[in-house]
């Protein structure tokens, strides 16, 4: 037995207030609709979802390169500046034996952004080709990516705190480095990319396959 979807029943879900709306005769998933409950305009599926996801994803990847090359903060001690990149900052925690903290920053700053970028490329590719698409697995993966996104801002907040707290004039002070701009852009771009992806596309392909199978069986 297969599950019926809203789309097959000629219904579309408002993404804002979760009200089901009747689709007009002849309307398809890219026709703008107005919600009867909240009066917002919406599409039954996010239009050009894959293209937008891909574009924001490429932007995120490009910004991630300078984010790791340039220093994210510069620590001044008696007038001498010591530039720190994201990776050298993690290395310092390792040197001090603070492995859990090093692991947290490494996960938030390196693993999560890369996982999001690679993961979204993979999801876009799988939806586009429809080959080996596993909606149950892939939708869980997508939600994990979406949940992890904001945690990548960790390093930016740490730098902001250090810049504000460590302000002891000539003795020692901290300044942010150019990488903080690129890194923040990476995080924002991956968040927008994940937001542009419509997880229902994962199931739409599956549904049409199943329907085709059922027709063949008859």
């Amino acid at each position: 037995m297969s599950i019926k979807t809203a789309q097959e029943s000629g219904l579309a879900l408002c993404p804002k207030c979760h009200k089901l709306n009747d689709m007009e005769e002849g309307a398809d998933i890219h026709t703008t609709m107005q919600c009867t409950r909240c009066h917002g305009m919406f599409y039954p599926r996010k239009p050009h979802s894959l293209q937008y996801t891909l574009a924001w994803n490429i932007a995120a990847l490009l910004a991630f390169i300078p984010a790791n090359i340039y220093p994210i903060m510069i620590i001044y001690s008696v007038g001498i500046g010591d530039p720190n990149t994201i990776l050298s900052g993690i290395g310092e925690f390792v040197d001090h034996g603070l492995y859990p903290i090093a692991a947290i920053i490494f996960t938030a700053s390196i693993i999560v952004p890369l996982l999001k970028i690679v993961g979204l490329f993979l999801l876009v590719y799988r939806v586009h080709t429809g080959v080996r698409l596993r909606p149950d697995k892939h939708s869980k993966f997508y939600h994990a990516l979406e949940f992890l996104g904001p945690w990548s801002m960790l390093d930016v907040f740490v730098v902001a705190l250090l810049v504000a707290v460590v302000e002891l004039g000539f003795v020692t002070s901290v300044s942010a480095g150019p990488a903080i701009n690129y890194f923040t852009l990476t995080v924002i771009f991956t968040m927008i990319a994940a937001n542009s992806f419509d997880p229902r596309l994962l199931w739409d392909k599956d549904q049409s396959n199943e329907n085709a199978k059922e027709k063949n069986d008859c």
Partner: protein
Amino acid sequence: MNTTKDTSQLIACLQCDALYDTPILKQGQSAKCIRCGSILAERKVDSIERSFYWSLAGIMLSVPAILLPIMGVTLVGQYHHASLLDCILALIEHGFIMIATLVFLFTLAVPIVRLLGAFYITSSFKFNRLKPSLLHFFRAFHHLDNWAMLNVFMLGIVVSMYKLLDDTELSVNMGLLAFILWLICSTMAASSLDQDYIWQELENKFVD
């Protein structure tokens, strides 16, 4: 093809579009989509009351949480401390305007607007002052969901403490306590707000 079913008797999964009959839920119950496992509908316990008081407490706590110093450092006899607002001002001073703007939005503006929004909606329900404009207000309210990052900032405080512990004398200030309480209040205010219930009530009143 076009089934003329009453759409209020049906709900669809936001994540996979599967269609179900609207489940009848008691307070505290939730329904899950059998296909993708995400939550379809939820009926929260005492939603309006709880969200009202959490958001009221959050609004009051936001002032000390933002203005009181969170932590300070002492090195060779010199002391300096900083609050959440100081972080934003320091970034502006160093010329990082974009970062300052984003930190301002994620840790200050969005959380405050969400608290005020939750307070406005729940107090309208509590004191029976429902207006049609609430429909538009509540719709705009949802755009903010992903962009409040107080919890991430909290982890940032912990990490920077470890970073400072080694070379300086670290002191913790009242601002940290206020910030933690603020974080708890805004999380609770958001999670106790029953969106399905509010939409249903607004629809019954203002949409024919």
